[in-house]
């Protein structure tokens, strides 16, 4: 391809040398590969491209979206992915089964336990390990705590993307408490690396229990107070109601899961639909909403926080004594075969498909990430919307770019 091509852009370093610098059109430096690409990168009268991201305040990481705008109206948009791509799946295929758990964490850097969980579950299926019940309870307890911290942060970032400065700081109070208590058993504040094949890395300790008790005593009122700033805010509600509406059938067709799917009215929750761990023994509801818009997604997360608090309460009451790790050899060589494990994360279904060939490394390793599948619906949600709506829709979908780019 020559630099004189119509599609040569300033992203191409060769162009920077001998052509006018400073013109940064977000057009890819190669001829269009598909019909869709050719159509998207052709401007009609009065339209222009605007490049949102990869470093933009409200792209939740390094998502890049090329928008074709006509004034304030978004005519079309094209998400460009891969800025955080690390090749995790390939890395995991060349790593020991234990090592892969550490690679899982940064995929979901807001609630990293939920990416470790399906991996260890898949390996346990391969190895036919019985996980001790105390370990399962600890997994559920820490997982639900992590879900609350993730949902609290999603609420705050939703407000921040709409221009509200304060709610994000209130959310970080909750998150800070939770990561501190998780740090007291895992040693980390962010990428916990806590679950192990056959159990968890450490038992609950006094520091954790005292922090949890203090926090639980005020969690409900605190979360109510935080949401009061937004739920009764006319500007916030009006900007979100009816925004990014999707009906349940379309949502299913676009492979949505998690709170985003439940906000369209389908009570699909893997904790109930395909029960794992000790969730069948626990009593909790699956909140749903029928509107399917950004406000419903936001409100559903608040409802889920309340259910998570219920689960934590039950875990604390019913947690048995006993070991936290199953008896396993140091070097794991599972039987040849394949295993699939899915958990319900704060953003939807996290799943791992692992194939073993009898060695100590996974032969094939595939990650299913919900954020990626939510992002593919941008064009449906943004039909006839304004630039500012994209920020609200993106915040309401709550994607994590670590998992999207893998």
């Amino acid at each position, binding site marked *: 391809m020559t630099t004189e091509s119509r599609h040569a852009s300033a992203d191409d370093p060769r162009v920077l040398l001998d052509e*006018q*610098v*400073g*013109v940064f059109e977000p057009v890819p430096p190669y001829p269009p590969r598909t019909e869709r690409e050719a159509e998207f990168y052709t401007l009609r009268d009065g339209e*222009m*491209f*605007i*490049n949102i991201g990869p470093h*933009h*305040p*409200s792209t939740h990481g390094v998502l890049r979206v090329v928008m074709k705008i006509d*004034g*304030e109206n978004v005519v079309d948009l094209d998400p460009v992915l891969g800025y955080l791509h690390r090749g995790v799946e390939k890395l995991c295929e060349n790593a020991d089964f234990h090592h892969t758990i550490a690679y899982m964490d940064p995929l979901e850097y807001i609630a990293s336990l939920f990416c470790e969980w399906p991996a260890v579950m898949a390996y346990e299926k391969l190895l036919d390990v019985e996980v001790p019940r105390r370990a399962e309870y600890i997994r559920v307890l820490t997982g639900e705590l992590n879900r609350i911290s993730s949902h609290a942060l999603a609420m705050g970032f939703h*407000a*921040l*993307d*709409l*221009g*509200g*400065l*304060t709610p994000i*700081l*209130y959310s970080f*109070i909750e998150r800070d408490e939770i990561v501190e208590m998780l740090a007291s058993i895992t040693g980390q504040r962010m990428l916990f690396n806590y679950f192990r094949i056959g159990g968890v890395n450490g038992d609950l300790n006094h520091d954790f229990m005292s922090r949890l008790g203090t926090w639980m005593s005020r969690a409900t009122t605190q979360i109510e107070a935080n949401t009061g*700033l*937004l739920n009764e*805010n006319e*500007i*916030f509600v*009006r*900007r979100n109601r009816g925004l990014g509406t999707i009906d349940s059938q379309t949502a299913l067709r676009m492979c949505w899961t998690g709170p985003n799917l439940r906000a369209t009215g389908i009570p699909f929750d893997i904790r109930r639909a395909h029960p794992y761990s000790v969730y069948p023994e626990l009593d909790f509801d699956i909140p749903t909403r029928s509107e399917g818009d950004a406000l419903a997604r936001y409100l559903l997360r608040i409802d889920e926080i309340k259910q998570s608090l219920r689960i934590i309460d039950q875990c604390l009451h019913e947690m048995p004594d006993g070991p936290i790790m199953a008896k396993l050899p140091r070097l794991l060589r599972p039987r040849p075969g394949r295993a699939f494990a899915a958990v319900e994360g704060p953003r939807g279904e996290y799943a791992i498909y692992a194939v073993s060939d009898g060695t100590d490394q996974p032969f094939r390793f595939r990650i299913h990430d919900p954020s990626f599948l939510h992002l593919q619906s941008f064009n449906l949600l943004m039909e006839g919307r*304004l*630039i*500012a*709506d994209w*920020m609200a829709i993106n915040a309401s979908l709550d994607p994590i770019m670590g998992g999207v780019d893998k």
Partner: protein
Amino acid sequence: MTVVGRTWNRLTLPGKIVFTVVPVLVVLAVAAVVAIALVGETVLEILGANLPIVRFVVAATAILLMTIPTAFLIIYMEMKGIALMNLRIGPDRVGPFGSLLSVVHGLKVLMKEDFTPTGADPTIFTLAPVVVYLSAVMALLVIPFGPGLFGVDMNIALLYFFAIGGLTVVGLLMGGWASFNKYSLLGGLRSAAQIISYEIPLTLSVVGVLLLAGTMSLNQLVQNQAGWFTDWYIWQQPLGALIFFIAATAEANRTPFDLTEADSEIVAGFATEYSGMRFGFFFFAEYVNVFIVSALMVTLFFGGWNAPFPFPATSLALDPASLGIGLLILIAVVPVVATLVFAAPFWLLRPTWPAWYGLVIGFVLFNLVAVAAVAGWAYISFDWVAGLVWFLAKTYFFVFVFVWMRGTLPRVRIDQLMNFAWKWLMELAFINIFITAGAILVVEALRSGS
């Protein structure tokens, strides 16, 4: 190479400028003093003959200089106020309670690189902040800060205010267009749409006050509201005041109408490509605009520099010259005695402290009391001091309301913004005008009938 040459080469660029400019200024100042001493009579005569011009120049300079500490103060208020609303501590390192942080910010933007992006139009890019800042300063010229404390007393002050306030949009559009950046362009377009739309309800909302007052001179408006706080126009024009406040928020580009610089959407909008002092001018102009709309709100609806109650009629006719030699004794004796009196409790109650601790504390306390006494005396004796105090107190209350809204509210969307201006605010402003005019007719008919 000589010593002077070596020293000169070691200087940085600002140093070279300072060492060149300062001697020139000193020479010029000496020359001016000599010239005034030689032809002082003539100069004074010329100045005296052109008193209005001299007054205008002095007032304009004072207002230009006043904007800087005003902006510093409001920036500090915002940083600290929003920090407290966010349950943070906020600035607390530079100066008492971090109060000098905004000054440091000012110095920082002065020292930063002044960057012009490739593809930008350098002339317009440079002029835009100047236009924005000057329009803010020029609008401040007609605000009456106190009795006799105003830049110009125009009989069409209000019209002038709106005309100059509308100039801001030219500057923002220039900045947005010349930056050669799509975010900036969108910001400039948004500012044009927003400010021009909200100019209409803003102007219409004050028509009710104009009908009641029968004048456009801001001084006259303030004098009409003298007396008790029940005489303020807010009681007769609550709807007008509400519309004015909302539209003024949009005019000053403040949350929830800060679409022009929406940081989560178009990344600071028109200011994206600005750095250094050019950005500083935009930044300052925003806070000066907040002060201005608060000041106009106070002037129009909250009695301007009038106290909420009539001034106490006591005037402390203290003529220092009448004391004669007593004044000298007073100045010599009172500080010493007062310091000792204030120090005495510390000597008595803290015998372990060194004696000079008490003296220092006593001296500081005496100074505080003296300052308070002088301020109180000035408040009672000069009505412009009292007026300025009340004016600033009310204005900074509204500045605080702006800060409060910034800490609480998210941003509206551009279509909601436009709908609100054209479908709600404008209609309400018209209704307000008709109700006011009808009420005036009815009251006049009743008065003439009885």
